[in-house]
């Protein structure tokens, strides 16, 4: 009987930690959503009253809306660049057994290993030394490098699952390389491309270590702006921004799930 007692304690402990873990995972997102509807002027929880005032205030705050638009534009450009450049590279590298291919793969994956702050600082120093002025373009370039590893991994995984016989068939039946790429390869690796675009966009939109060094007054991005606001004061407008980000991300996840089964792709990473 003693063993079953120990087992029961073990199960209780496991269950209790699991409940705590699940609560811990969920609570912050819920807290942000709840506090964004506060009618008060502080982050007092639970909110003393309810209103949409901070969302209204947010829409009228140009100093937050503009960085948000910049972030969206930069993320869109970085996603496009990393998907095109990284996707092409993944197509070339994924099935090659050349030493050169393995070396390039390691190079393209290395931004993931390296602390991104060192990379952000190094870009700032180089642009300064070469006399290149910081702009949206330099920011996009930095973000592209950070996003590439996700594209290489996810598109690469799709390419590896692609049956090469299908391509040989298409070519031997007289289809051109471009036609084969468009009609055979591209549809079959679509899931990998959609998933990697989704992750790349979020990575760029959320990036801090690179933007911290490369964003100047004209190209201020949202995460850095929010960080600066929160460093100065505990501004409730940030709650409204957070609410918007959470809801938009959830909507984006649903869309990406429908088009590309993103959660399975991310799980595989």
């Amino acid at each position, binding site marked *: 009987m003693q063993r079953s007692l120990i087992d029961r304690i073990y199960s209780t402990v*496991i269950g209790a930690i699991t409940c705590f873990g699940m609560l811990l*995972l969920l609570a912050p997102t819920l807290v942000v959503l709840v506090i964004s509807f506060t009618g008060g002027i*502080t*982050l007092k*929880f639970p909110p003393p009253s309810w209103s949409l005032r901070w969302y209204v205030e947010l829409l009228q705050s140009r100093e937050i809306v503009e960085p948000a638009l910049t972030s969206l534009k930069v993320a869109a450009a970085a996603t496009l660049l990393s998907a095109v450049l990284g996707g092409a590279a993944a197509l070339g590298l994924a099935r090659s057994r050349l030493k*050169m291919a393995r070396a390039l793969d390691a190079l393209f994956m290395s931004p993931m290993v390296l*602390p991104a702050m060192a990379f952000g600082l190094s*870009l700032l120093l180089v642009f300064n030394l070469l006399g290149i002025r910081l702009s949206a373009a330099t920011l996009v370039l930095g973000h592209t490098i950070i996003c590439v590893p996700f594209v290489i991994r996810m598109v690469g995984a799709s390419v590896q699952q692609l049956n090469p016989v299908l391509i040989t068939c298409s070519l031997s039946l007289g289809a051109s390389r471009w036609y084969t790429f468009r009609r055979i390869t591209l549809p079959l690796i679509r899931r990998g491309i959609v998933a990697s675009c989704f992750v790349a966009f979020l990575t760029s939109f959320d990036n801090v270590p690179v933007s911290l060094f490369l964003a100047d007054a004209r190209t201020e991005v949202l995460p850095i702006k929010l960080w600066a606001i*929160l460093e100065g004061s505990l501004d409730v407008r940030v709650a409204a921004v957070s609410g918007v980000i959470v809801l938009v991300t959830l909507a984006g996840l649903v869309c990406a799930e429908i088009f590309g089964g993103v959660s399975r792709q991310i799980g595989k990473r």
Partner: protein
Amino acid sequence: MTPASTSASRQLLPAVPLAVVFLAAFVLPLAALVAISLFRTPQFAELSLLQYLRFLSDPFSIKVLSDTLWLGAEVALATLVLSYPLALVYVASGPFMRTLITFLIMLPLLTSTVVRTFAWIVILGRDGIVNSAMLSLGLWQSPARLLYTWEGMVLALTQIQLPLMALPVINSLLRLDGNLTRAAEGLGASRVRIFLTVVLPLTLPGAIAGWLLVFAAAATAFITQTLVGGGRIILMPSYIYQQAVGVQDWPFAAALSLIFTLAVTGIVFAIGALSRRFVRGVDAA
């Protein structure tokens, strides 16, 4: 070149544009970072190892580095303790519970870092959830300072980085052959013993992989460190930022970021290599 090898290297052509971009915007800047760290003054006069000596002979700098690495280790350990129960429940449950746990793990992974950090400011703040709950329950007489403390920072980072640990641990447990645990059960082993002698050793590679991911992520988490830890806790990321942007001492900032990079990646590679050498789990089988 033989025709076969030409066509094999032609396969690599699509990777050339990205390779060029990486040379210009990744390899070149990092080389410049190394070069700049070797200058004696911020005006780039005279090559020397002064910046590195400055770091090594300064107790404050050493403490900043060791605090940062310790923070990473602590957070990674906390996520490990939370992840195993989550993963055990995940593996033992049906499709509904599995979907729920997956959703809960993905949720913080997909919401922005600043948002997650902001949530912790709301939770730990003076008028935050913890303080109002404790005060209204009468457990505390006055609000406690939770924000801008080391413990608060560890708690926030644990939640923020938990997905990075939970995913590999769940994957490892899923790959574990169920016959092994059933055999141990049939032979009369208690569930604690099964966990300690069968499940844990065989899923250790996944746990180590997760530990390293969380360690690196928590040590470099600039936003959470500065906002939840506050200005009085100085860690490597904010130290580098302050030296580069505040003081504009680029050679020292460059040396700091290289030392930090080497310390973090060095630990990750060393532990990774040791675990591949000595730990045989489901992934090795």
